[in-house]
């Protein structure tokens, strides 16, 4: 194990902050690693559902990272994948139950996609690649960073789709009736899956141009 007797690190040391900020931009789970695409397409018709989904994924990811990290020395390596899966599944079902109890309408709109967080590659990926080798605090930062990295992409796509496709922003109408009377029409394509693909593609392009990261 790598964490034997290292000099004590500050909670927000440069290295830790890097763990947090990296997945938000240059190592983004969606635009760089291209994980979690299925849900990114499905829940981004409206900003409200995208926001709830982003929060759900971030909380599951952070909690699962902490749990796995705390147990990392005790988890027998033979059954580590199934243990990770059990932890993630338990957390996801908890989130689903809470949504059903307190945010019923949104949970209906998200339908199966909350349950499908279990199979979201980002979560298992972070547990396996990061939390198993690292202490709890960096794992929290890694979870939060990846969750937010996933979340902001979701929100940007949802914003584009909701404004162009439904003419609303978080459910509030943006365009006055006179616009529609003058012949303006909502873009139906944006409500459908291809709209999400196009926006996502553009985002990947923009993001990779800025951070100059190229997939080998």
């Amino acid at each position: 194990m790598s964490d034997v007797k290292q000099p004590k690190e500050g909670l927000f040391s440069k290295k830790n902050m890097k763990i947090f900020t990296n997945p938000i931009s240059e190592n983004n789970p969606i635009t760089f690693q291209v994980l979690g695409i299925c849900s990114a397409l499905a829940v981004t018709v409206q900003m409200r559902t995208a926001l709830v989904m982003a929060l759900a994924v971030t909380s599951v990811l952070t909690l699962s990272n902490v749990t796995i990290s705390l147990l990392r020395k005790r988890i027998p390596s033979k059954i580590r994948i199934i243990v990770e899966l059990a932890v993630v599944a338990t957390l996801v079902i908890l989130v689903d139950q809470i949504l059903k109890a307190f945010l019923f309408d949104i949970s209906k709109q998200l339908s199966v996609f909350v349950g499908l967080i279990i199979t979201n590659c980002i979560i298992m990926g972070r547990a396996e690649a990061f939390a198993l080798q690292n202490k709890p605090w960096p794992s929290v930062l890694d979870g939060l960073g990846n969750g937010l990295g996933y979340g902001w992409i979701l929100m940007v796509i949802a914003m584009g789709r909701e404004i162009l496709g439904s003419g609303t922003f978080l459910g509030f109408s943006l365009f006055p009736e006179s616009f529609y009377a003058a012949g303006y029409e909502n873009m139906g394509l944006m409500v459908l899956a291809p709209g999400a693909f196009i926006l996502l593609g553009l985002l990947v392009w923009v993001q990779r141009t800025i951070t100059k990261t190229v997939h080998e």
Partner: protein
Amino acid sequence: MQHSNAYTYRFAATVTIVCSVLLASAATLLKPYQTQNELLDVRKNILASVGIKPEEGKTFSHKQVEKLYKENIKEFVIDDKGEVVDGITPGELDPKKDKNRFPLYEKQKDGQVESIVLPISGKGLWSTIYGYMALNTDCRTVIGVEFYKHGETPGLGSEISTSSFTGQYKGKKISDENGKLVSITIVKGKVKDSIADEDAWHYVDGISGATLTGRGINIFLEKDLKKYTPFFEKVLAQKEADNE
């Protein structure tokens, strides 16, 4: 570090127990809230089927739903002969025991029945679909259909709960001029391509990619409408008697 087999078993057992205790307690604690939400959702959909819907992009608050429901909807239970059974509400029916008793809702205004709402449910492709159908007092013309609970494929089968699909049922007829039940069938593709114009009253367009979901709906809709036919006959006979 290698762990022994005994340790691995112990660890797996502990994880299982901790997870199941957590989930079981969460489910028990949250159950009351979820049941209440589901009841509200049912009421909201009964209201929607008779055309009481919030404006586009808005939603009713819990209180509004309760109030509108109380003001507009009366609940009944009928038996398989079409007679109203007194002293029991739809909420008290046990679907397993009361096989010959069916819930029925009426939209009333100043004591006048405006529409009849019946629950429809049955198997789709993956899941049981639940919904409501509202009929005019002629017991023939559909006022509205809502599907509110199902587990069909998102984007394909789940399109049955969109208004662009359910809206098609509006104005269709469940029986022919002589009162014989024909139900309403979802066709594959468009109605105008495969059905003669004079029969189009009994058909709606299908959803591409959701043929099997549609087939499920066709089957249970007809089955459920049959259960209520004795009641429809009673209502119509009563109407005729009143007219004479």
